[in-house]
């Protein structure tokens, strides 16, 4: 155990989980309804929302994704605990 996360991390993470969950639901729906323009508009709206939230979460937690999908801090902080099952 190295770092403890501040309470606002949990709040921000849950907001990101909520937006990402909407994206999962719309994604599965659109797989079967590819011509629903309103749902596509909504999907793209939440893609933008998630970018903001993801930046906010990463400013506290460090990179959320590996393999170049997130910027790294110096030193390399992808490997830092806590991991999702530990938080």
């Amino acid at each position, binding site marked *: 155990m190295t770092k403890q996360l501040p309470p606002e991390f949990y709040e921000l993470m849950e*907001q990101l989980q909520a937006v990402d*969950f909407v994206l999962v*639901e719309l994604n599965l*729906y659109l797989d*079967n*309804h590819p011509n629903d323009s309103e749902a596509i508009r909504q999907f793209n709206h939440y893609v933008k929302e998630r970018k903001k939230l993801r930046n906010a979460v990463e400013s506290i937690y460090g990179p959320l994704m590996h393999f170049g999908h997130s910027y790294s801090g110096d030193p390399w902080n992808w490997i830092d605990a806590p991991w999702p099952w530990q938080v």
Partner: protein
Amino acid sequence: MFTLYKTYRPFVGPFDPCPPIRVKSFSTPPNLYIGFQPNNFPQFTPMEALRAGTLWKPLYDPYYNSRELAKGGNPL
């Protein structure tokens, strides 16, 4: 009346060793009645959706055990 849980009454024999459960129930979730989801289904807000496990209100069908039901469950 439409319900997402159905019941049946199993046969009770005179030599059954345990006290009989007279009514058994089982789940018939909303997916069984929708077929192909129409456009513009009513939605939850993102935070409600996360809590519910679905974005789509007509698909929401929470399950509670009997102790939770005795306390009224905790629906959204």
